[in-house]
């Protein structure tokens, strides 16, 4: 009889999740050949991550930002407002370059949804940035320093009544919402519902329903895309995402300047808030992986890059809570997939404190040989092919770079060829050179 989930070790859970991903239940492949390719590609990636046996060759993953959209001759605006077009662009990209792993088509996101809710945290094509450019974050203090106490006391309530009304213009009337935990007894219960009768609050809910419909439409298109790309033989290496608690505070709530100053002025509250976020971030990742039957949980790393924190600050404020999130995901059989854009050279010795064969790291501006000797001893490494080279270099330069990467990192497995940062622009012949060269030169003999 099959072992129950709760009785399994983390190794067994990871294996079970991988098997679910490699042999998806009820999947209908386009052809027997597509099914064979799918399994070969997925197995190759699994072997690289587990570091137990050598894959047949170095796997290749492509992690673009808006590149597929430009490659298909569209603008980011087109992709964000027409999900069919978006999907066509990403499918063309994946089929044309044929990587082993891809990240589906969700990067552009639903423009109309953001528009309905008047999202402030980002500017997107046609809304604050040109239709030809990708969306970009608007730095800001979306939570004031005084609000740490509210966040700590009741995070969901804080999000409903303060944070959401602030970052979504259409939800501003939600400031008037009641605290749901006030709904307790016969008498007085109705008083809690009075705000829902107020016209501005009702308008906000109408916008929310409208936005929900749009999100559902987009979600349907994304689900269809993943099923389709898989049916054609291409495994998706991301089920969902979670974040380092420090980045939740630094990106989403307090802003970069805010979180940096908080380390000096209110370190205890910052630490407490991050501590509070750990189980929330764990649940977010576990939920996504289980829903998708896919072990990969993406973790974009931002404010802990080289130079952004001192070594001492990284060890005190960034790594401990991130590590707890990663370890809990590993325990659930999940493959945490941290992506460190920018430099991470000074963190390698710290982040290597992880069990072997459990994580996949996308690295950008890094000494890969050094990374292999440190973090690479316990984790599968990917990345480092520079965006500037993909954009401005020649196929020969790409091949030389790829050769250097394979020579210094591929030995013994635990290595995936990929780009280092999520790219918008590149020359197609350069991506072909990276993929084709690796398929040839990266074979393990």
């Amino acid at each position: 009889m099959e072992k129950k989930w709760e009785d399994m070790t983390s190794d067994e859970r990871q294996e079970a999740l991988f098997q679910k991903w490699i042999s998806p239940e009820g999947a209908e492949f386009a052809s027997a050949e597509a099914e064979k390719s799918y399994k070969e590609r997925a197995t190759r990636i699994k072997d690289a991550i587990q570091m137990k046996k050598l894959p047949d060759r170095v796997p290749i993953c492509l992690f673009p930002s808006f590149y597929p959209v430009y490659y298909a001759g569209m603008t980011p605006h087109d992709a964000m407002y027409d999900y069919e077009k978006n999907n066509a662009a990403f499918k063309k990209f994946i089929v044309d370059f044929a990587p082993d792993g891809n990240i589906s088509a969700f990067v552009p996101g639903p423009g109309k949804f953001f528009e309905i809710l008047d999202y402030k945290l980002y500017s997107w094509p046609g809304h604050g940035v040109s239709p030809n450019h990708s969306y970009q974050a608007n730095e800001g203090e979306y939570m004031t320093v005084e609000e740490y106490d509210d966040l700590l006391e009741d995070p969901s309530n804080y999000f409903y009544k303060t944070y959401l009304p602030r970052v979504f213009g259409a939800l501003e009337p939600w400031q008037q919402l009641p605290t749901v935990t006030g709904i307790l007894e016969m008498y007085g219960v109705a008083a809690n519902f009075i705000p829902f009768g107020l016209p501005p609050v009702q308008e906000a809910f109408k916008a929310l329903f409208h936005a929900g419909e749009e999100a559902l439409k987009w979600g349907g298109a994304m689900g269809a895309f993943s099923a389709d790309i898989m049916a054609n033989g291409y495994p998706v290496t991301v089920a969902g995402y979670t974040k380092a608690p420090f980045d939740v505070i630094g990106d989403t709530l307090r802003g970069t300047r805010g979180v940096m100053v908080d380390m000096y002025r209110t370190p205890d509250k910052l630490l407490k808030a991050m501590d509070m976020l750990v189980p929330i971030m764990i649940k977010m990742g576990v939920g996504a992986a289980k829903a998708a039957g896919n072990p990969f949980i993406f973790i974009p790393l931002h404010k802990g890059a080289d130079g952004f924190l001192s070594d001492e600050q990284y060890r005190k404020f960034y790594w401990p809570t991130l590590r707890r999130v990663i370890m809990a995901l590993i325990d659930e059989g999940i493959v945490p997939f941290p992506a460190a854009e920018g430099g991470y050279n000074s963190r390698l010795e710290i982040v290597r404190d992880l069990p072997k064969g459990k994580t996949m790291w996308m690295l950008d501006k890094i000494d890969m040989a050094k990374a292999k000797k440190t973090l690479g001893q316990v984790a599968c490494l990917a990345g480092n092919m520079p965006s500037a080279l993909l954009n401005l270099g020649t196929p020969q330069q790409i091949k030389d770079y790829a050769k250097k990467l394979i020579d210094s990192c591929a030995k013994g497995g635990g290595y995936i060829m990929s780009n280092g940062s999520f790219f918008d622009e590149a020359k197609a012949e350069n991506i072909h050179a990276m993929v084709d060269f690796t398929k040839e030169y990266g074979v393990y003999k």
Partner: protein
Amino acid sequence: MAKDLCNTLADLKEDEALAIVQERLNANADPLGILDDARRAMEIVGKRFAESKYFIPDLVYSGEILKKINEMVKPKLAKEAETKSGGKVIMGTVAGDIHDIGKDIVVFMLDVSGFEVLDLGVDVPAQKFIDKIKESGAPVVGLSGFLTLAFDSMKQTIDAMKDAGLRDKVKVMIGGGQITDEVVKYTGADAYGKDAMVGVTLAKKWAGIK
């Protein structure tokens, strides 16, 4: 207590530094003297950053403390006194890109190194750089960009300088997460700064400061 404002601020001891400022203001000390100490403290902060003893949060925090000191001192100031001796540098994040953290660090470091920084902000169209070069006569221009899309905006900005007949009059440095030598060549810039300190070194070299 006659504590040293310069070192206290350079060590990022906010409460102590503000207390010293308050004490000196209470004693009717010269507000310009306070600002001069603060300026010297910022130089030390910049130096420690250059030596990798300080990191970005230290710069940000020192800037926050300085802001408070300025607010305290301002009411006592007869007039704006500060003059910069290092020369003018125009800085901005190029068109289409709204990232400002990297640019702001370079602005800070140039500022504490004695330059008069003309910060044009983010998403700056080429024409705005041209207008500023003409208006200020600044010999150094810094173009910042985080996105790979910024490569094209940088190139367009530098091309616009050529078209306006200004390219020979200025030195152009570029910087940002994905900038490399290839990008320098592509955009037609003179050099790139891997970090803020290289930017300062370039500006000093071009402005003829040793």
